[in-house]
């Protein structure tokens, strides 16, 4: 949605996605698909060379895509097997092997959620770089 509005204002965009069905539904102007677990779209932790390759290929797709709505799959694989795909958002099994369906996401609290308690104390209540468009 943001990419579409940017393109309408004359700014070229490329979306990096690890959720191809969602990206296909939203249908952004240009996208690359990375077959990585959610939360790792730009590569593996502390793999600078890998992250750099992913970004170079992403920018190359930006140059080559000519048809609006194209999703270019990049060639990277997360691991030799695709075991991670089995567990992503699938019911887990408890100790007895029984399937457990639960919502393991964090509750949707409407107060700021700090990574570290110290961040709360350091946060500037008048933060000039925090923007609240609704206000």
């Amino acid at each position: 949605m943001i990419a579409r509005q940017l393109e309408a204002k004359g700014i070229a965009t490329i979306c990096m996605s690890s959720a191809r069905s969602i990206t296909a539904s939203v249908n952004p102007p240009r996208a690359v698909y990375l077959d990585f677990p959610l939360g790792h779209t730009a590569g593996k932790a502390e793999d600078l060379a890998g992250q750099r390759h992913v970004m170079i290929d992403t920018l190359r797709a930006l140059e080559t895509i000519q048809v609006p709505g194209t999703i270019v799959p990049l060639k990277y694989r997360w691991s030799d097997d695709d075991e991670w795909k089995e567990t992503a958002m699938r019911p887990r099994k408890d100790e007895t092997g029984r399937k457990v369906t639960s919502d393991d996401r964090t509750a949707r609290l409407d107060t700021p959620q700090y990574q570290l308690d110290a961040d709360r104390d350091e946060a500037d209540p008048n933060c000039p770089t925090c923007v609240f468009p609704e206000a």
Partner: protein
Amino acid sequence: MSEPVDYIERTRSQYDALGYPPYGWVKNEDSPPFTPLAKALDRAKVGLICSGGIYSRGQIAFHFKDDISYRKVPMRAPAHELRVTHFAYDLRDARKDPAVVYPGKTLAALADAGAIGSVADNAYTFMGGIYSSRKVREKLAPALVAECVRDEVDVVVLVPV
């Protein structure tokens, strides 16, 4: 490459099993707006927009319920200044190395190497997982677009989590 994980299908079955009403994914069937690249990448100024709940030390963190606010984060912020909180994905690697969801330093390194012209001083981050697509369309997206126009970027890389 094996089949992509179909998160729409998995969300549907998870919500179903939990007795939640189905999630309403945004579906755009029209052809998206499209701006050809105006200049070669090695002369282009590149911006970055990421969802996924990234903020930097000293900023107010995001909350988890339809938060449409955003943060200006220095593109070259060192990893130890960056924080990540989110309700829906595994944060362990993102906290170890924020570049996996916030590739600011990756873009900055490419600018330093001359592969792209330059990077904007700031990237923009927000939470995502906003149930109201109307609020995103009418409030958040136009505000981010205005920032990118002010920054005079030629290209924006978007990283939705």
